[in-house]
């Protein structure tokens, strides 16, 4: 049945998010908060996350162009990004935030630059994968809303 095939595909996409280390246990926690009354909760959180993150990334981009670098400011932005990444379960992005903060602590400009490039890559990949996953789940219909397999 086509429906089962779609379900398997969605489950596969979901599993690969974990297998590739893109998301962690917190993502599962979000899924568990989803129910019939709130069928799109995880996607809603993700949408807020993209919006909030892109704002912070933009701020970081601008701040990193300054000379000399204001490491306090950078650390502050990154603290916010780390927080929201943690809340959505964005494992790799969160790890990169930690690296960046460490470079801030040691006032390492090169380290910050490198780390930020890596972070942007991780973020872009996560966003792409999540968007594809949610789109697939939505297309499959309300009964197939992205949620933890029961």
């Amino acid at each position, binding site marked *: 049945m086509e429906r089962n095939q779609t379900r398997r595909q969605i489950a596969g996409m979901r599993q690969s998010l974990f297998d590739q280390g893109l998301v962690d246990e*917190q993502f599962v*926690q*979000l899924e*568990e*908060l989803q129910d019939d009354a*709130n069928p799109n*909760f995880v996607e*809603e*959180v993700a949408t*807020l*996350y993209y*919006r*909030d993150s892109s704002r912070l990334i933009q701020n970081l981009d601008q701040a990193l162009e300054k000379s000399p670098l204001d490491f306090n400011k950078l650390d502050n932005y990154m*603290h*916010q990004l*780390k*927080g*929201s990444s*943690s*809340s*959505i*379960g964005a494992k790799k992005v969160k790890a990169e935030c930690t690296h960046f903060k460490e470079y801030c602590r040691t006032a390492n400009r090169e380290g910050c630059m490198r780390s930020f490039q890596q972070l942007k890559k991780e973020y872009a990949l996560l966003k792409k994968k999540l968007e594809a996953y949610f789109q697939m789940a939505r297309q499959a219909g309300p009964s197939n809303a992205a949620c933890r397999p029961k």
Partner: protein
Amino acid sequence: MAPQQQFHVLAVDDSIIDRKLIERLLKTSSYQVTVVDSGSKALEFLGLNEDEQMDQDVSSVLPSDHEQDLEVNLIITDYWMPGMTGYELLRKIKQSKSLKDIPVVIMSSENVPSRINRCLKEGAEEFFLKPVQMSDVNKLKPHLLRGRAMEDEPIINKIEATLEVI
């Protein structure tokens, strides 16, 4: 013991994602929820102006025009916020005659023992590490029940009621 009405929790967090998350967690536990994005907005909602600080003689919170139709049974706040921190908010609440008995819970993304101790010393009931989970929110019930028991019982029975709940 069936509550007469829903418990009302005020959540404070400057992060839009965390606000969404805490709101969902609290609603899942059948609490009525108000969410604000800063300490000053929290105080405004509680009916306490910035000027009106300690020992003001307000026996109950005077309802401003539109806010405070509902009593707040617990406040849960993020620690690190621009402007007023959660710790500062906690202090203001504990210093306010009208608000000091409302249980306050602090949330933080950082596990800093000195910070935790400072908050608990200042009167916070719990300190949750972020991301906050259902298992954390489940810990709120005893504090809410204790608050209600103290409201309903006459003073003589206050201690008794508290011991019963523990």
